[in-house]
């Protein structure tokens, strides 16, 4: 009888506790997870390989798909890597607009994952409220770029089109709205006694684990390490805006949520400064000749950005042709999504699996690439 103790469960891909096309095979003994095996590959489109067969400009339409909830970070990293290889200058205004776009995307992402804790814990009012506020940001995205989710807005050389003053006014209004409603999220989610019970001391990540696995972003900052690419290696104009990097000393699910909540405030602060300080001027450097026959100089570059889930990087090699020679994407959720699941989940309970996935910000396509 003792042998039939472990029960194998398929947590995903067709499972309400799983977001994205990803699955975790778990063996449970009672309610305790004995073994967890990440099973990626369901969204494998071979992004890195596909990029080698497309023009430098065509790739802009492809790379967004690497992470659905925060696509803009891909555009920015790709464009900046191309610009670094080519040695291109980006107009000042375009850099400010890029910061604005990235921070808007960060707010949208954090709102989704802050409300998203309602999925695994059953507080469905949370995600619904968060999606309403995220939609306001998407409205602004639509006004700026013409698209709601996949914007294809940040391109090598700048951004596709300028932002009008009316849109900036709308954006300020939306930020005021969201800032006014943030305390409601705090009451509903962060101060909810049952959410606290479900997330405190749950899905704990130690500092040693985080550093040795290569976990970055919120999960690392929750262990007390204030590593934020925006501060350590400022890109674009992040050195010209003021913001804090909130940290806490204990990385459990609750503290990670708390940091996300705090970072929304910081992002709002950054966008306000951007709107205030943004210089006028042109937003896009003209490419030499036909964009589809554009040859980027020979060379390679690694560009890293701070995404909502951690350090996000593109390593690109160009052999001087019309297509990239090799592209490598460092998905921000790769360490916690694969290694984290296999090493971190055993010993936790079945109920906490979805909480781990949610608060670590596992983005399935980033793992598959």
């Amino acid at each position, binding site marked *: 009888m003792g042998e039939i103790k472990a029960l194998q469960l398929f947590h995903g891909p067709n499972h309400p506790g799983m977001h994205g096309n990803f699955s975790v095979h778990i063996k449970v003994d009672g309610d305790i997870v004995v073994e967890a095996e990440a099973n990626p590959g369901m969204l494998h489109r071979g992004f890195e390989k596909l990029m080698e067969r497309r023009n430098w400009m065509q790739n802009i339409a492809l790379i967004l798909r690497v992470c659905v909830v925060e696509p803009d970070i891909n555009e920015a990293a790709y464009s900046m890597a191309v610009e670094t290889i080519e040695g291109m200058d980006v107009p000042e205004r375009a850099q400010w607009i890029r910061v604005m776009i990235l921070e808007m995307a960060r707010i949208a992402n954090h709102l989704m994952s802050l409300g998203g804790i309602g999925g695994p814990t059953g507080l469905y009012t949370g995600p619904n409220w968060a999606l309403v506020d995220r939609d306001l940001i998407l409205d602004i995205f639509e006004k700026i770029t013409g698209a709601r989710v996949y914007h294809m807005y940040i391109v090598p050389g700048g951004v596709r089109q300028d932002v009008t003053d009316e849109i900036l006014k709308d954006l300020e209004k939306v930020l005021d709205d969201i800032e006014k409603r943030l305390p409601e999220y705090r009451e509903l989610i962060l101060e909810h006694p*049952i959410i606290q019970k479900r997330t405190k001391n749950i899905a704990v990540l130690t500092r040693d684990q985080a550093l040795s696995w290569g976990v970055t972003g919120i999960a690392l900052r929750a262990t007390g390490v204030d590593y934020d690419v925006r501060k350590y290696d400022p890109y674009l104009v992040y050195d010209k805006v003021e913001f804090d990097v909130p940290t806490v000393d204990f990385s459990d699910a609750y503290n990670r949520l708390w940091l996300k909540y705090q970072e929304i405030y910081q992002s709002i602060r950054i966008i306000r400064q951007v709107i205030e300080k943004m210089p006028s001027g042109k937003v896009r450097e003209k490419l030499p000749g036909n964009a589809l026959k554009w040859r980027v100089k020979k060379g390679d570059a690694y560009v890293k950005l701070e995404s909502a889930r951690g350090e996000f990087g593109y390593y690109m090699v160009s052999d001087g042709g019309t297509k990239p020679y090799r592209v490598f994407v460092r998905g921000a959720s790769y360490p916690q999504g694969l290694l984290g699941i296999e090493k971190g989940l055993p010993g936790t309970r079945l*109920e906490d699996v979805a909480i781990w996935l949610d608060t670590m910000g596992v983005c399935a396509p980033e793992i598959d690439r």
Partner: protein
Amino acid sequence: MVNMIILAVVFVIGAFIFQVTLSGFSRKVVARIQKRRGPTVFQNFYDIGKLLFKESSISHGFIFDFGIWMALGSTIATLLFMPVGGWALMPKYANIIVIIYLLAVGSLGMAMSAVGSGNPLASIGVSRALTQMFAYELPFVVIAVLIIYLAKSSNILKIIEYQTQNGWNLFSMPIGALVAYISLMGMLGKKPFDTPIAPAEIASGPLVEYSGKYLGFLMIQHEFATFIEVGLFVHLFMGSTSIIGFLIKYIIVYISAVMISSVMARLKIDEVVKFYWRWPLGLAILQAIITLGVRF
């Protein structure tokens, strides 16, 4: 006899229409809380209708099929013992003990059927459901026994009569009403006590293997069970003899439970048991001591 059968059919259909409409309305209420529009009030009729008209259901053996009929049949049988206001189909047998026992048969039928499906998620869900039943029934039964003692009868009609003479039990034993209300949330599977069907953990637990007609039957069973459980609470604590009064109180109790549920998160199963046996059970005993102390 024929008269009674007709009455029974009318009663069952009436209860069904009332509860399903109310469930639809409650979805509207939840949608408003969640800043959504929500489906129409008749959405649950459409859902059940669609499921019942599906061609076939996959079977996982005799126990799987039989359990569903056992659940639906015994729940409808329980419903026939339920009074509405001061009216009951079988006034002599409108007894709390009968209702509590028969209702458990329905739950057991569903548990049997779910385990019969052989899906591990369903087994986990069933074990959770039975554990939770164990947790909420104890405090509820303590209060029910107290009410039976006060009314000197376990007949619900007598209990209603006792309340028309002495005022609602809700006012004479508020702590007991609170305990029964919390137990009711557990019976209905409303959050924070929806652990047995936790979608994010065990993919709806017992319901995971059902589709088509069987899922439709289980939805109907759930609606009837809801009618019985909420109705029982209304009778025990806000008893009155008019049918309209009963329905109004019923709507208030049910919608309030739905509203509380919509801003609650899910507890883990061990926390559910700990919670029920710490707070509601403690409060139920406190209520018993107070009530009996006042009487003697």
